[in-house]
């Protein structure tokens, strides 16, 4: 062929090949995209911030896990369990018998009622797994689920993955304070506003007490107000109580499931990780009436079937040990709270000393603080993120101190309300708190 024609043919061939590859590429990528149920759920504040904070030179008060060791008897329990052949193999899907029996004992005492270990308890992969099982088992496409802001961030994506609509309502700080010290108790719901959120589509309300990130412990009256609405509108209540033992002096943890009419419509979620300072064990449980728990069990048998055996055995042993000591200072459920109260007070003092206003938590192991008084100019960081995200990223980079931005825990409409707050985790050893103190004291140098 003459050169020109040859070149022309080649060009066409190349063009056709290119189009073919392009089409193949488009075809492949469009068929292997995500399912609709996870559309828009790929972003996650932890994935964004935990890898950054993994740098050992950073003082990490971000993600919520202890850098203090778990109690020795808990670790021993696991080593002992792993030495038994049978305990390295599958156990009962809905919960290792020794564990559900121990839970039945402990919570039977707490609730003041008999709890059936096999029908009213489900063991899950952390409190997280219980939340997921409850959503998948009970929340329908098109349902509405009320969530109180600020909320543990996974509630919204889980509601959305179940095809339902999150309905948000913020806690707001009460004015009329004689002192400057703000407590998490000062953050309250507006009763009329809350009532207005309940509609005929409302399937459930999620509450978290003690609350992450603020540390609020809902009072009996507050819980009664929520309970009244649940009963009036026939909604379910999913009560995330993973910090149930971390209650500071002068406060009491109340289980909404113990209020009249609430046992039959409440799933209560707890965590071994938070109870025994072993977040890496990822064990939790749901407790509730059989007619609700059975649906969570159905989800469990179709998602991961069973939780690890030796870990469940060890938690059972730990629970039995502390059950005997319940009410006494030696009980880990009490002694950990006492230890953490000291750290809480120290953290608050450190922040106050440098002119910041922390919200003193009544429970849990987080403290939120308003950073306005630091007057940090972040205009160089652009406008595409809320202030707290920019502040935390800047602080990690420039000050080597990690925290979590509180707007990660609220919806778009409330971002302005919370964007000056960051969350600090204080279940850390003294040297970590010392290091944080040093950084904050030298802030302006």
């Amino acid at each position, binding site marked *: 062929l003459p050169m020109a024609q040859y070149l022309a043919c080649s060009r066409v061939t190349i063009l056709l090949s290119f189009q073919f590859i392009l089409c193949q590429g488009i075809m492949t990528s469009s068929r292997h995209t*995500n399912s609709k149920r996870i559309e828009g759920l790929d972003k*996650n504040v932890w994935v964004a911030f935990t890898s950054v904070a993994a740098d050992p030179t950073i003082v990490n008060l971000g993600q919520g896990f202890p850098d203090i060791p778990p109690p020795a008897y808990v*670790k021993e329990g696991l080593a002992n369990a792993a030495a038994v*052949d049978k305990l390295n193999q599958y156990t009962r899907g809905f919960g290792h018998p020794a564990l559900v029996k121990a839970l039945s004992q402990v919570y039977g005492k707490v609730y003041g009622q008999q709890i059936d270990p096999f029908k009213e308890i489900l063991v899950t992969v*952390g409190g997280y797994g219980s939340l997921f099982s409850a959503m998948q088992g*009970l929340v329908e496409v098109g349902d509405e689920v009320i969530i109180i802001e600020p909320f543990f961030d996974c509630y919204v994506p889980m509601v959305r993955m179940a095809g339902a609509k999150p309905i948000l309502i913020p806690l707001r700080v009460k004015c009329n304070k004689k002192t400057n010290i703000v407590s998490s108790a000062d953050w309250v719901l507006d009763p009329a506003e809350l009532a207005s959120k309940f509609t005929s589509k409302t399937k459930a309300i999620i509450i978290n007490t003690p609350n992450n990130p603020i540390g609020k412990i809902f009072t009996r009256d507050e819980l009664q107000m929520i309970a009244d609405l649940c009963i009036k509108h026939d909604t379910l209540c999913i009560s995330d109580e993973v910090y149930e033992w971390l209650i500071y002096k002068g406060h009491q943890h109340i289980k909404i499931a113990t209020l009249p009419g609430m046992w039959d419509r409440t799933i209560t979620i707890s965590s071994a990780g938070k109870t025994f300072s072993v*977040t890496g064990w990822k064990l939790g449980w749901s407790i509730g009436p059989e007619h609700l728990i059975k649906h969570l069990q159905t989800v469990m048998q*179709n998602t991961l079937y069973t939780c690890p055996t030796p870990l469940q055995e060890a938690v059972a042993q730990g629970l039995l040990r502390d059950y005997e000591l319940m009410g006494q200072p030696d009980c880990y459920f009490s002694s950990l709270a006492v230890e953490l109260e000291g750290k809480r007070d120290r953290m608050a003092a450190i922040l106050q000393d440098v002119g910041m206003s922390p919200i003193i938590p009544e429970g849990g192991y987080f403290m939120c603080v308003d950073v306005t008084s630091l007057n940090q100019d972040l205009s160089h960081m652009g406008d595409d993120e809320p202030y707290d995200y920019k502040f935390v990223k800047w602080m990690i980079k420039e000050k080597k101190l990690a925290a979590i931005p509180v707007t990660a825990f609220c919806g778009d409409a409330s971002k302005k309300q919370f964007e000056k707050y960051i969350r600090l985790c204080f279940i850390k050893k003294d040297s970590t708190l010392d290091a944080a103190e040093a950084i904050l004291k030298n802030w302006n140098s």
Partner: protein
Amino acid sequence: WKLFDVSWSTIHCKLISYILIMSRQLHARRIEGVDKNIWVEFTQLAADYQVVNLGQGFPDFSPPSYIQEAFCKAVNGGCSMHQYTRAFGHPPLVTILAKFFSKVVGHDIDAFEDILVTVGAYQALFCTFQALVNEGDEVIIIEPFFDCYQPMVKMAGGKAVYVPLRPVRGKALTSADWVLSSEELASKFNSRTKAIVINTPNNPLGKVYKREELQLIADLCIKHDVVCISDEVYEWLTYDGAKHVKIASLPGMWERTVTIGSGGKTFSATGWKVGWAIGAGHILKHLKTVHQNSVYHCATAAQEAVAVGFQREYEHFGTPESYFLQLPERLQHKREKLAACLESVGLQPVLPEGGYFMIADISSVKVDLNDPSTQGEPYDYRFVKWLIKEKGLATIPVSAFYSPEHSKDFENYIRFCFVKEDSTLSSAEAILRNWSNGK
């Protein structure tokens, strides 16, 4: 009277409250029809009666000592062993999995992009279906199949389309004799097909798919642009020199395959529940989204131990010290022992090329299944329950591994797990012999 009034109104309130709760549908539609589960049913039965348990698939011998030591070491390790690790997989584990399987698959696997660690292979399967299957998508399942595939497809809103393995020559002596019809398989693919699930070595049959058989499936996947979900939890357990082939290693398949593995089956520690999904990053990222919105993290210490286990196996790969060679050798002998015993009592075993299980044809055994509580159930279910209650031997009915459409044709097989101590297998033998002699 006053006391009675108070009690009555309390009862009244509770009743009204109960009726009110029951007046709206409590459960979500996605869990309709997936509430029955053979394991829940049969493990309970095995626990209720004193049985020799060849039912559920778990070893009754200990995991290798080096893996138990690794777990103990992790437990006694620093603080970080008991706290959250990286959500998508503990770095030492994903790193060694990438290194190990890159060699096996013949493709450079990125530890952080191409791997997701899950709570057992079971959760990897769940993440895969939830990540990829939309309402109305079709998913091809080859029968007999590990029972969870069907409810998982259903829960994801998908439609399961079944294609059976069939014994050739009418009398199938080994799992190699059970094959797919290529025309039948091809006919199941259409524009709505999102994925096909394969399981090799297969549970319950024990079939180890040959390269040509996988090529057939691969060709169809490529032609119809379908994702292949390859459940390879028994990948190290092949017998008589059968070779496990990874479909992801075939040309054109890496970018469309999710390969699922199990630490529990690999290291004989099923109770640890450490599994993984390996595949191209553009697909794995969707599994990660499901994972971060369902369980988020897996237990740290168990992942650390499995990582140490794989490191050790990487160093001993192909040598006599390799557990991946030692275990199948040990199991080969147990497989033969059980097969011989079953034959001698008139049951016809299908000799498995791989895996934990052996199925046996019970047609020639005539038993008076005089149990009103199992009336109306499939024959193999009734037989298995009778065997548990009357003979103290637990097995699993094979029709549980078939679709509702085809299970009626396969009610004459029961499944035995032979990954048991010799003493357990001898006890089973004794039961079968006594029964046979008593006839």
